[in-house]
């Protein structure tokens, strides 16, 4: 029993990872993929923290009564990883908004034919307004 | 001028000419003058190299080291100088002829034409004077790419197609089997330098040596050994002076010259002689016969000459494979004689095309009356390529038969005899068709009257064939001296 409990967090993490990846693989919607990616990354955070836990240890804040502390290093790494996760999510969402405006859809099945390599160069319906505006200024 | 300076001059002069041609591109006559001066200069430099050559002082000149052990090195040695002599000699004539030809054909992009010509000659010189297999490969590749613009000159659909196949064959054979063989040799022998007596003796057992020889034979695509000869006929899309360059002066000669150097300096003649080259002998002999037969079926003049070249080159491969000093001597002589004979035929074919705007054999009946001198030149060229005595072509055939007899390969002797007859079979009809046949053969007694559309045959296109035809006869006499020049290297003692 002790063994099972001992490794249960890792197995749970692995299950979460696989679910997260399954969502990215199977779901067609781009935003859905981003969220799947988020789940996948959060499961990694749980893995790191699970590694750092010490039985009977208290949170790594020095105090007189306590002697045994959990491992602080995973917490530091995860702090960084969380922020990285959000940064990636933000850029991903911005991209999906632009794709929605450029292609009119964010479903993978619909996007594939539109982005096939053989298509001639098209800057998309919205391009006339968006970047062209920018381009007027530069033209002498 | 020491030998090193001469060698460098021989290589750099054509490239300098090419540059000058590009610069003077707009003024046609100036550009043509530059080509001719360049050709003359090269001829002089090479002549001085040959005249002043003595085996003792032939120290190598290292230019660069691309990879440790893979050096760019020049060294003058007899066989190289013979090839350089042929190339340098015929470049002048070829330029003269191409001036006449290109102007008569009002060809576009002539500046690029002459520049690439000069570059191709520069590569040929580099191949001739290369001191090791590495330099030879570098120059060999450069030659392929330098001649591509020439082959694709007309830039018509057919030209592009032909040039594409030309390039596919040459680059494919040089990048895979040839480079593979070079690296294999480099590893087996530790060095790539050309050393008399060969560097592979004892390094690999005979079975592997045979495989390596085959890799070289088919790797050197320019030697057009069957069945990888496809590029030669497809290169016929090029203008005639280029076909002359390809088939006589630079490209194919570079191929067989490479085989000769590999046989003499990498394998060593005795090594090939003791059985390593036997299978290649069979292939080469078959190639001679089959190519001759195919030549007979070709109605287009230049295609017929192309297959004839495949056959004649296969003879050099045969010489290499026999592994006898006499055979190698035959190879060297064939290299010279075929160059002069075949270039005459091509000049002739081009002149005929200029005069009568006709390319096919069946169409040139009865024009002998108009240009007798041209026809006599073509006859001399044909007989020299066929190998009949009063012309230089006889020597290589005679020495090959001698070598075949020495190795008592009677079948081979019969093949060589047969090939002489076949060569006559497909070359002499050209002369007959032109000289003796009336334009319309149905009524035998009709006398060939003046040809109706009178093509203007520029004088420039007439002189070169006559000169080269005379050259064939002169070479018949000069053959022994060439042999004496080459003998010490190929271990052929006892010559007068």
């Amino acid at each position: 029993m002790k063994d099972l409990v001992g490794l249960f967090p890792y197995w749970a993490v692995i299950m979460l990872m696989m679910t997260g990846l399954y969502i990215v693989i199977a779901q067609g919607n781009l935003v859905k993929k981003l969220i799947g990616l988020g789940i996948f990354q959060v499961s990694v955070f749980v893995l790191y923290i699970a590694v750092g836990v010490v039985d009977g240890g208290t949170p790594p804040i020095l105090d007189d009564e306590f002697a045994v502390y959990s491992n602080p290093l995973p917490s530091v790494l995860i702090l960084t990883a969380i922020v990285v996760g959000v940064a990636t999510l933000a850029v991903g969402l911005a991209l999906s908004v632009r794709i929605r405006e450029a292609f009119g859809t964010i479903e993978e099945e619909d996007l594939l034919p539109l982005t096939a390599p053989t298509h001639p160069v098209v800057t998309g319906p919205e391009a006339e307004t968006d970047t062209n505006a920018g381009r007027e200024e530069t033209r002498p | 001028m020491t030998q090193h300076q001469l060698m460098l001059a021989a290589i750099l002069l054509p490239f300098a000419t090419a540059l000058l041609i590009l610069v003077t591109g707009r003024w046609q006559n100036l550009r043509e003058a530059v080509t001719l001066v360049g050709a003359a200069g090269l001829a002089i430099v090479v002549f001085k190299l040959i005249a002043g050559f003595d085996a003792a002082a032939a120290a190598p000149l290292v230019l660069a080291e691309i990879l440790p052990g893979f050096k760019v090195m020049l060294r003058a040695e007899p066989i190289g100088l013979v090839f350089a002599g042929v190339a340098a000699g015929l470049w002048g004539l070829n330029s003269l002829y191409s001036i006449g030809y290109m102007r008569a054909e009002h060809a576009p992009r002539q500046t690029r034409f002459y520049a690439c010509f000069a570059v191709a000659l520069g590569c040929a010189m580099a191949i001739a004077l290369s001191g090791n297999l590495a330099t030879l490969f570098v120059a060999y590749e450069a030659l392929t790419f330098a001649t591509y613009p020439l082959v694709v000159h007309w830039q018509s659909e057919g030209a592009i197609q032909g040039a594409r196949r030309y390039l596919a064959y040459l680059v494919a054979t040089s990048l895979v089997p040839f480079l593979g063989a070079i690296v294999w040799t480099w590893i087996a022998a530790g060095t790539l330098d050309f050393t008399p007596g060969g560097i592979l003796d004892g390094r690999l057992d005979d079975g592997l040596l045979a495989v390596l020889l085959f890799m070289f034979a088919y790797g050197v695509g320019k030697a057009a050994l069957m069945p990888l000869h496809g590029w030669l006929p497809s290169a016929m899309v090029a203008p005639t002076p280029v076909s002359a360059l390809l088939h006589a002066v630079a490209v194919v000669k570079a191929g067989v010259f490479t085989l000769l150097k590999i046989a003499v300096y990498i394998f060593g003649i005795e090594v090939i002689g003791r059985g390593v080259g036997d299978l290649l002998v069979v292939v080469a002999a078959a190639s001679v016969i089959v190519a001759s037969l195919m030549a007979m079926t070709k109605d287009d003049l230049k295609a017929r000459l192309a297959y004839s070249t495949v056959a004649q080159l296969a003879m050099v491969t045969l010489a290499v494979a026999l592994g006898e000093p006499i055979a190698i001597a035959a190879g060297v002589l064939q290299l010279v004689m075929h160059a002069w004979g075949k270039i005459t035929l091509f000049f002739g074919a081009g002149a005929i095309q200029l005069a009568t705007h006709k390319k096919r054999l069946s169409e040139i009946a009865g024009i002998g009356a108009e240009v007798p001198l041209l026809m006599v030149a073509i006859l001399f060229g044909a007989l020299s390529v066929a190998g009949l005595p009063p012309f230089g072509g006889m020597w290589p055939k005679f020495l090959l038969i001698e070598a075949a007899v020495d190795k008592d390969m009677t079948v081979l002797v019969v093949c060589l005899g047969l090939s002489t007859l076949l060569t006559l079979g497909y070359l002499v009809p050209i002369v007959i068709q032109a000289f003796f046949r009336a334009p319309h053969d149905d009524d035998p007694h009709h006398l060939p009257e003046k040809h109706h559309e009178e093509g203007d045959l520029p004088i420039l296109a007439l002189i070169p064939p006559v000169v080269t035809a005379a050259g064939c006869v002169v070479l018949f006499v000069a053959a022994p001296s060439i042999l004496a020049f080459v003998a010490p290297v190929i271990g052929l003692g006892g010559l007068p």
Partner: protein
Amino acid sequence: MILPDAILAHAAVLVVVLPLLAAPIVALIRDHRIAAPLAILIALASVVLALELVNATWGGETISYALGNWQAPIGIEYRVDLLSAAMALLLTVSGSLAALMMSTAIAPEMAPGDRPRLYAALLLCMSGLTGIVVTGDLFNVFVFLEISSLATYVLIASGSGRDRRALTAAFDYLILGATGATFFVIGIAFLYVVTGTLNMADLGERISDAGRRAVIVGSSFLFVGIALKAAMLPLHRWLPNAYAYAPTVMATFLAMTATKVSIYLMIRLTDVVFHTPGELGRVNFAALMPPVGLAMLVFGSAIAVTAKDLKRLLAFSSIANLGLMLVALGLGGVAGIAAAMINLFNHAIIKGGMFATATAIVHRRGSARLDAMAGLSRQMPVAFIFLVIGGLALIGVPLTAGFVSKLSVVRVAFDLGDWTVAGGILLSSLITVAYVWRIFEATMLAEPRSDAPKGDMHPAFWLPVGLLGAGTIVFGIWSAPVIELSTRIAHQMAGVTP
């Protein structure tokens, strides 16, 4: 070197921090006419620093720089040996060349207001990659990997001004890149669990007595994460779209750097962390790399033959050349690694040169499609000549850098008596001839359209294109520097004194 020795001591960290901190400043500047020169200046400064690093580590020494003065396993440590210094040099040079071309190249595509931010993104990408190359701490590699990846997604997406498909290319690369990075972090987690440390050298010592199975899982995750970034065969889907639709100047930078850093990581991990040259954990390179490399060589070249767009063609050609590098890595041993490094540097120069020329052509003609390049040889002769030089180098014609790299790999294959690999390389290089010749025929033989814009390369491109073109030729003839550098690196990797 020319720098005061005070700065020299910190060269290792400055080469990363300088561009990193310059980026926010450049982003803040409103006027792009000031931001561009500043970015170029910073990039050139980091080149000088990188040169200094190379000079310091040339003899085989390793610079160790403890960040925050906390010694190795406790704090983060920068460990710079010749391999890192050389890679840093390559990255900074590529960055400065891209910066040089940037202002002219993206003028038509990007609103002037956004351009300073794009320069900042380029600087961040460059410093991120340099950060990966010089660090000795595994988690630090992840952080800088994220910086460079995010900056790369932005750089690719900025191509949407010319072609909307840049957005989907960036999105695909984001998803795949994030997955790869997370795999990398999982790998670090497993290794951390069984060794307790994040420092590579320290990890190296403790890995032998660590739990075998955890090391296997950890190394597998690490390998897949790196393979994805290195665009190895099954995971190369992001590369063609990324290079084809990113602005060409970004594609130039990416072609010279992106996948090369992953190859560096593979060499670094096998050498320092796992001490088993030729094997990452249980992933045996000798067994895996040659077949995958050859497959990449064949598949990349095959699709390149059918590509209709020059940038897409060059992208697939990059995949093919990567395959060659992996084959060299797979052959292993001192000679193998040396051949891989020669290939790496030469390919960066050749492919960089061709992409730079493509930038100039796209800048002048508006599109990189092959049929739009008809008659290039007459209208843009200088660009055409550099395209020819690059093309011949790709084929591996002697007297070009391409020949040196191909020959070095073939020679190693022959030395090991590995006929199939040698034959495979030579045969698949034939397909290269096919697609390179498509470029020449498109540019030389086709008749030019009458309305094609006149005028040759814009002066801004002369230096980068000229430099890289000249490099292709010079390193083909006088190849001593590249070969000397690579053999020294290989000796260092195998622990043998040069």
